[in-house]
């Protein structure tokens, strides 16, 4: 299996022209193997619902986990991401349709979504809730041990976001930004409503690497989407998925999975009112 597609340009130079499409199947197979192995090895441990009554005192029954803006971003990104992956890879595997226009419009929508997300994170949310610190690393180590069946290991409670969710976010962010930046550059290859084509603004080799990076990010996102959907439907994670739909989690899930010292909910009445408002 080759990693790159290469060609001789008109000047006889051997240049990359894109990533090998064999890697699409590699991503799908790796994703499928990951899902199967994980499903077989890691027990579906649904929460017991046992919480410390002292911690529960004063907390509302429903606590807001995702504001409407955050949920809007998530689902908007999901829709554009599926549109982008389908229009990018279905024609390659033989399901052919006019895909280019849908692809770049979805790309533009994704960019707008990402810009909104960046604004929302800095203006409306706490940026540091997604930062990985030493406690997250420890949480990750213990969580891995517990997942692998070590009897004495117990995963400590997380902050607002578990460390695996943070890691997924950061990897998806790198892949998405890589695809977005290279995608914008690729639009200089064609006349479009924003600017006229500037086909020769880079050398053939530079263009080739731009296509390679775009392809690698896109193929990486295939794996990431498979993993993300898999975790979203696992029984012990479904409460998180529901919270991305309705915005809130119940008090027991909060206390069971989140460390109140690391994710301090605001005044209880406000939380409840916001949750009801969603």
């Amino acid at each position, binding site marked *: 299996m080759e990693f790159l597609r290469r*060609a*001789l340009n008109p000047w006889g130079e051997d240049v990359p022209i894109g990533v090998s499409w064999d890697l699409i199947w590699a991503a799908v197979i790796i994703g499928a193997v990951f899902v199967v192995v994980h499903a077989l090895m890691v027990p579906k441990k649904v929460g017991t619902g046992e919480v410390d009554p002292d911690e529960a005192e004063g907390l509302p029954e429903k606590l807001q986990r995702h504001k409407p803006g955050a949920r809007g971003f998530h689902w908007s990104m999901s829709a554009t991401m599926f549109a982008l992956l389908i229009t990018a890879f279905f*024609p390659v595997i033989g399901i052919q349709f006019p895909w*280019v226009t849908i692809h770049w419009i979805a790309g533009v929508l994704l960019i707008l979504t990402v810009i909104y997300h960046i604004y929302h994170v800095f203006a409306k949310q706490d940026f540091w809730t997604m930062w990985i610190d030493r406690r997250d690393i420890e949480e990750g180590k213990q969580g891995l041990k517990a997942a692998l069946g070590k009897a004495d290991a117990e995963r400590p409670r997380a902050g607002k976001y578990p460390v695996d969710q943070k890691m997924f976010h950061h990897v998806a962010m790198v892949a998405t930004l890589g695809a977005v930046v290279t995608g914008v550059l690729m639009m200089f290859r064609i006349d479009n409503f924003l600017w006229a084509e500037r086909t020769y603004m880079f050398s053939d080799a530079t263009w080739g690497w731009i296509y390679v990076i775009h392809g690698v990010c896109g193929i990486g996102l295939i794996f990431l989407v498979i993993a993300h959907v898999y975790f979203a439907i696992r029984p012990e994670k479904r409460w998180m998925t529901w919270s991305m739909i309705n915005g809130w989690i119940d008090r027991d899930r909060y206390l069971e999975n989140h460390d109140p010292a690391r994710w301090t909910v605001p005044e209880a009445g406000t939380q409840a009112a916001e949750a009801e408002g969603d």
Partner: protein
Amino acid sequence: MAVIRDMIPPFELYQPAGVDDAVRLMDEHGSDGWVLAGGLDTFDWFKDRIKRPAAVIDLGGVDEIRGITGAADGGLDIGAMTSLTDVAEHADVQGRYPLLADAAGLVATPQIRNQGTLGGNIVQDTRCWYYRSGWPCYRAGGNICYAATRRSMNREHCIVGADRCVAVNPSDTAPALVALDAEMVVVSTSGERTYPAADFFIGPDIDIERMTVLEPGDLLTRVVLPAPWEGARWYFEKIRDRKSWDFSLVSVASTLSVQGGVIQDARIVVNSIAPYPVRMGAVEAAIRGREPSDETGHMAGEIAVEDARALRHNDYKIALTRNLVRRSIRDAA
């Protein structure tokens, strides 16, 4: 242009005696195989050493797809290996489908028409010289169209239907067959399929590396013409740089069903302005119920170029298309 060499790279030559053998060989060799009909597209590729197939399947001995016979519904059944000369000079074609006879008779030169086949003329590859020079353009699997930039020589390229690639379909018989509602019969190891001619040609938006629905292993075996329309009028015109021998810059094929001096139905097809023969649906709808007059033709010409967008060197094609569509209605006989 690439440097044409005398010697072509070696390949295994297969000479099947029937369609079944041919499609079996094509299936066996897949994308490493190359189907040879008249050879007029093929040997350019081979001598340029751009295409280097491992196996060539020569259809020269497959007589079952050569010749013209009557079809069941009163139409004609033309084998894909029938020479263009035979198509152009056949009495039934001349008498009942003069549109196709005209189109076939205007392909290249007498020598080429003797050697070239109807099937080969239909499925031939585009003549974009950037592509045929072996450069890694979109159509060749790369990531650029060398013909679409502001510095490109794109006088012969498309004004509609571009999607990254701006190459045009070069066939003379293709627009005539679309205008005649012909059906293309395709055979592969999985059986026989039939496509309306209008659906047989595909644009780069669907697949940028193909010009027709044919995939490796597919063989165009026959072209079936339905019985001509009652009261049909025809028009074919090909504009080219040299009348002696050239590909079209723009060509038009029209079929009009005229009764009581009014157009009942129409097919207007323009080629060499897009990567596929363009059936002018909006024009056809607009002229139904009108007289085939100069006024109607003028209106049709304007509609025909509404979506046209010229490249740097081919805006003349817009005027050509406008006028050819106008004539194809006004002068159809």
